[in-house]
C-alpha cells in the first residue's frame, strides 16, 4: 500500500511535465492511475469482507515507535474506493472543464497530491502518519481552493479554509498524541483494541480530537468555510467538498469510535452537534440560489447527519452511517459535476436564472434527475436505502429519540426541496436565454456523473451488492464488532417509510413555495452578520493586529536589542536553574592546561578587551577575526581539525561579507548613553559569568559517559570513514545536517527576499546586513559542531 500512495505522489510530481507533452489528453492519461488503483482495491474486496484487515508496515522512526504502516479494513476500503473511483472521473472531467487553462499542469499536480494525501489518510494504521496525511490534505486543498490565485476573493477564501482546518489540525495533533499515550501505542490497530472511555486523559483528548474532526468536516459553528471553499474550480468542489476531504473528519470519528465512542459525552456531543449542523446546513441550502452554494450547504447537512449517526453508536447507526456515506458520495459527486456542466456549457451558476434546459441538454437532464432522486431518497434509488436506515437508526436510538427523529424528518423535508430544485428548476418549465449556447458536454465530463448516478440506481435495486462486499465490513469496522443487520430496499410498510413519504410530500409542497419561503426567512441575512463567520473575521483581525504589535515590539530591527533579549533570557533561565541546584560543585582542576593553551587564552583575552575599547570599525573587525583564528587554533589543539578549518573559512567569508557592507556604515560615534552602556556591560558580564559557571558545573558533574566513544568506535566499521566529524555529519546524524542546510537555504532565501523585494530606493539598513552575516556565521559554526 506504500507503493499505492507513493505512486500517486510520483505521478503528481511529473503531471505538469506530462501536461506539456500530452496537452488536452492529460486528464485521461492521468486518470489511468486511479483507475488501476481502483481495480486493485476492488480486488481486495472479498478478502476484506471476510473480516481480515490487510496490514503492512515499514519502520519509519523506530526509536519513537512511529511506523509507516497501513491498514485496509472495511472502512478504509470504502473510502479508498471512493477516492480512487471518483478521482478517476474527476481527472477526466477536469481535463475538459479546465481545458486550455494556463495552469492546468499545476492543477493536476495539486489534485493528485491531494488524492495521494487523502488515500494515505484513510489507509494509515499509525496515528502520526495519519496526522501527517491529514495536514497534507489541508495544504493541498488550500492550493486547490486558491487555484485562481489572481482573484483576491479566491485567495481570501482559501486562506479561511486553511486557517480553520489548520487550527483544528493543531488540536488534533495534541489529541492524537494523548490518544497514543493513553493506549500505549501509536498503531491504530492496537488502539482500536482498547476501550479508552475510562482513561483519565479521555475528556481532554476527546475534546481535541473532536475539534480537529469538526473543523475538517465543517460542523457548526465551523460550517462557514465549506461553502466559501466553492471558490475552487468545480471539479475540486466535486471531489474535495463532497466526496472526500470534508469526510476526513467523519472518517476519523468513525475510525476511532471503537475506542472513544459509547460514552455519555461522545453520544451527547456528536448527536447534538451533528443534528444542529444537519439543520443549519439544510436550512441555509434551502435559502441559497447559487447552485454550488446549495450543494455545499446540503453537504454540510450530510456531514452533520453522519456525525449524528456516529454519535448514536448503535449497530444500526453504524450501518446507516456507512450506507448514507456511500449514497451521499455517489449522488453529491454527480450533482456537483452537473453544476459544473451547467456553468461550463450554459454559463449558468444560479437557480434563478436557469429554466427549461431539458431540450438543449437532454442527457445531462436525465443524469441530474436520477442523481437528485437519490438525494431526495425516492424509491428505488440507493438514497432511499440510506434514508430508511437513517430513520430507523434515529428511531431506535436510546436517548433524545424524539428530538433527533423530529430533526431528521425536518431536515429531510428540506432535502426534498433541494433535490427538487436540482431535478426540476434548471431543466423543466419555460426556457430562459442562457449566457452561453447550452448543449450537452463531451463524454469526458458526462461519464462521471452518469456512472455515479447509475450506480445509485443499481445499488438501490440490488442493495445486497454493496452490503455484502463492502458496507457490512465497513460498518463492522465502525462498530467494532460484527454487524448483523443487512441492507434491503423494501422493509415493509413501517414508521420510517411513512415519515419518508410524509417528508417527500411536504418537501414538494415547499418547493412550490420556494420563493415565498426565501422571502419569509430573509431575516437570516441580517442575523448572519453576527454569525460564526463574523466571529471568525473578528478573530482574524485581532490576530493580525496582535501579530503586528508583537512584531513591532520584538522584531524591531535593531540587532543590539535582539542580542540583549537573547542574552538576558539565557542568563535568567540558566541562572535560575543553577540557583535551584542542590549540589553546586565546580570543576576547578586546571592542572592539565598546556602552555600553548594558556598562551592562546591570553591572546583571546587581549583581543576581546581591545575589541571592546577600540574606536574603529575596521579595527574591531580585524580583532574579531583574530579572535576567530585563535578559537580555530584551540580546535586544532584538541585535534578537531575539521572544526578548525571550518572556523578559519567562516572567518574568511565573514570578512568578505563585512567588506561588502563596511564602507556603508556611518562613522564610528558614540550614540548610546552611559546608562545604556552600563546596562549592556552588565548583561555581557553576567552572561559570560553564567556560561563559564555552567561549563565548570557540567564538566564537574558529568554523570554519564559521553557518546563520543561510540562515534569513534563505530566510525570505521559502520560509517566506512576515518574522519569521524564527517561521518557524523553525513551518516550518523545526517538528518540533523539536512535540517541545518535547510536553515542555510532559508537564510539565503531570506537575504535574497529582504534585499530584492524591497520597494523604493531606501538602502538596506546596516542592522539587517549584520544580522544576516551573523546568522550565517552562527549557522555554519553550528553546522560543523
Amino acid at each position, binding site marked *: 500500500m506504500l507503493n499505492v500512495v507513493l505512486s500517486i505522489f510520483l505521478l503528481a510530481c511529473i503531471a505538469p511535465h506530462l501536461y506539456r507533452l500530452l496537452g488536452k489528453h492529460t486528464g485521461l492519461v492521468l486518470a489511468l492511475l486511479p483507475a488501476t488503483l481502483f481495480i486493485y482495491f476492488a480486488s481486495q474486496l472479498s478478502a476484506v469482507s471476510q473480516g481480515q484487515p490487510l496490514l503492512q508496515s515499514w519502520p519509519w522512526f523506530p526509536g519513537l515507535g512511529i511506523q509507516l504502516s497501513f491498514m485496509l479494513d472495511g472502512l478504509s476500503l470504502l473510502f479508498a474506493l471512493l477516492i480512487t473511483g471518483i478521482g478517476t472521473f474527476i481527472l477526466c472531467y477536469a481535463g475538459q472543464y479546465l481545458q486550455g487553462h494556463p495552469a492546468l499542469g499545476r492543477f493536476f499536480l495539486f489534485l493528485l497530491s491531494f488524492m495521494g494525501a487523502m488515500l494515505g489518510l484513510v489507509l494509515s494504521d499509525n496515528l502520526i502518519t495519519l496526522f501527517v496525511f491529514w495536514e497534507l490534505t489541508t495544504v493541498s486543498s488550500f492550493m486547490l481552493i486558491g487555484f485562481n490565485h489572481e482573484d483576491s476573493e479566491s485567495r481570501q477564501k482559501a486562506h479561511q479554509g486553511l486557517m480553520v482546518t489548520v487550527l483544528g489540525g493543531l488540536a488534533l495533533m495534541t489529541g492524537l498524541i494523548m490518544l497514543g499515550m493513553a493506549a500505549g501505542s501509536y498503531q491504530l490497530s492496537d488502539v482500536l483494541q482498547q476501550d479508552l472511555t475510562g482513561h483519565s486523559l479521555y475528556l481532554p483528548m476527546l475534546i481535541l480530537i473532536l475539534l480537529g474532526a469538526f473543523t475538517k468536516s465543517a460542523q457548526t459553528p465551523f460550517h462557514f468555510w465549506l461553502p466559501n471553499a466553492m471558490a475552487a474550480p468545480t471539479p475540486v468542489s466535486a471531489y474535495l467538498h463532497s466526496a472526500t476531504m470534508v469526510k476526513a473528519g467523519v472518517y476519523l470519528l468513525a475510525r476511532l469510535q471503537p475506542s472513544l465512542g459509547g460514552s455519555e459525552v461522545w453520544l451527547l456531543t456528536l448527536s447534538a452537534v451533528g443534528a444542529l449542523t444537519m439543520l443549519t446546513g439544510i436550512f441555509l441550502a434551502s435559502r441559497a440560489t447559487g447552485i454550488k452554494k446549495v450543494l455545499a450547504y446540503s453537504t454540510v447537512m450530510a456531514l452533520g447527519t453522519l456525525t449524528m449517526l456516529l454519535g448514536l453508536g448503535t449497530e444500526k447507526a453504524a450501518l446507516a452511517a456507512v450506507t448514507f456515506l456511500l449514497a451521499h458520495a455517489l449522488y453529491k459527486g454527480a450533482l456537483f459535476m452537473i453544476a459544473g456542466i451547467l456553468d461550463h456549457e450554459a454559463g449558468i451558476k444560479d437557480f434563478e436564472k436557469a429554466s427549461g434546459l431539458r431540450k438543449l441538454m437532454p442527457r445531462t437532464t436525465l443524469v441530474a434527475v436520477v442523481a437528485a432522486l437519490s438525494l431526495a431518497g425516492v424509491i428505488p434509488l440507493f438514497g432511499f436505502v440510506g434514508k430508511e436506515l437513517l430513520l430507523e437508526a434515529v428511531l431506535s436510538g436510546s436517548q433524545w429519540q424524539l428530538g433527533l427523529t423530529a430533526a431528521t424528518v425536518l431536515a429531510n423535508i428540506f432535502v426534498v426541496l433541494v433535490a427538487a430544485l436540482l431535478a426540476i428548476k434548471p431543466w423543466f418549465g419555460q426556457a430562459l436565454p442562457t449566457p452561453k449556447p447550452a448543449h450537452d458536454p463531451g463524454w469526458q465530463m458526462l461519464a462521471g456523473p452518469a456512472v455515479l448516478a447509475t450506480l445509485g440506481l443499481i445499488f438501490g435495486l440490488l442493495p445486497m451488492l454493496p452490503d455484502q462486499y463492502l458496507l457490512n465490513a465497513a460498518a463492522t469496522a465502525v462498530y467494532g464488532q460484527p454487524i448483523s443487520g443487512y441492507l434491503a430496499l423494501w422493509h415493509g410498510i413501517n414508521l420510517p417509510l411513512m415519515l419518508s413519504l410524509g417528508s417527500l410530500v411536504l418537501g414538494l409542497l415547499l418547493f412550490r413555495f420556494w420563493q415565498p419561503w426565501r422571502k419569509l426567512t430573509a431575516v437570516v441575512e441580517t442575523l448572519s452578520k453576527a454569525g460564526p463567520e463574523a466571529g471568525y473575521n473578528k478573530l482574524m483581525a485581532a490576530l493580525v493586529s496582535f501579530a503586528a504589535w508583537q512584531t513591532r515590539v520584538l522584531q524591531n530591527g535593531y540587532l543590539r536589542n535582539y542580542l540583549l533579549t537573547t542574552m538576558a533570557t539565557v542568563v535568567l533561565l540558566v541562572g535560575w536553574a543553577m540557583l535551584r541546584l542542590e549540589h553546586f560543585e565546580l570543576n576547578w582542576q586546571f592542572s592539565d592546561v598546556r602552555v600553548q593553551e594558556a598562551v592562546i587564552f591570553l591572546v583571546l583575552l587581549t583581543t576581546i578587551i581591545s575589541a571592546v575599547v577600540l574606536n574603529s570599525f575596521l579595527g574591531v573587525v580585524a580583532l574579531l577575526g583574530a579572535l576567530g583564528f585563535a578559537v580555530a587554533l584551540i580546535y586544532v589543539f584538541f585535534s578537531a581539525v575539521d572544526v578548525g578549518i571550518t572556523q578559519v*573559512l567562516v572567518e574568511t567569508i565573514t570578512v568578505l561579507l563585512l567588506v*561588502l557592507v563596511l564602507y556603508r556604515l556611518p562613522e564610528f560615534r558614540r550614540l548610546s548613553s552611559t546608562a545604556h552602556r552600563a546596562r549592556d556591560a552588565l548583561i555581557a558580564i553576567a552572561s559570560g559569568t553564567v556560561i563559564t559557571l555552567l561549563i565548570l558545573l557540567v564538566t564537574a558533574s558529568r554523570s554519564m559517559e559521553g557518546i563520543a566513544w561510540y562515534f569513534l568506535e563505530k566510525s570505521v566499521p559502520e*560509517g*566506512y570513514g576515518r*574522519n569521524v566529524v564527517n561521518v557524523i555529519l553525513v551518516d550518523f546524524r545526517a538528518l540533523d545536517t539536512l535540517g541545518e542546510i535547510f536553515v*542555510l537555504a532559508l537564510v539565503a532565501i531570506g537575504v535574497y527576499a529582504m*534585499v530584492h523585494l524591497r520597494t523604493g530606493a531606501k538602502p538596506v539598513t546596516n542592522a539587517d546586513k549584520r544580522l544576516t*552575516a551573523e546568522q550565517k556565521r552562527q549557522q555554519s559554526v553550528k553546522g560543523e559542531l
Partner: protein
Amino acid sequence: MSRQFNMRSLILSTGTTIILPLLLLFSLFLLLRGHNEPGGGFIGGLVAAAAIALKLFADDYPSAKALLRVHPLQLVGIGLALAALSSLPSLLVGDNFFTAQWWTLPLPIFGELKLSTPLIFDIGVFLGVIGTVLTVIFTLVEAEH
C-alpha cells in the same frame, strides 16, 4: 561596489586567473577526501564559495556571475534536493530511512570506485553551502547597483 572596482588591481586579477582553477579543484578535493581525511562538503563548499568571491573582488560582478553560470539560489535548491533524495535509496532496499548505502564499482584501471549515499548527501551539502554563501554575497553586491 563601484568604489572597490575603481581600485582594481592587475596583480590580483592575474593571480586570480591562475589560482581560481586550483581553488575550485581544491574544493572538490576537500569534498571527496572528506570521509577519511579532514575536509567534506561543508568545508569544500566554503572554499569554492570563497574562490568565486575572489573572482568577484579581482574582476567584477558579471564575470563572477558568469563563472557560476546558474543563479546561486538554484544551487541551494539542487543541493537540498540531492541531500534529501540521498535518504531514499535505503527505503528501496528495505533499510530504515536515511541508512547509508554503499556500492563498490570495479573500474578496470583505477581499481575500484566506492559510491555511497553519504557521498551524495555531502555533495548536496557542498552545493547548498556554495549556493547560500554566494546568494548572500551576490545579493549584497546587487544591492549596491
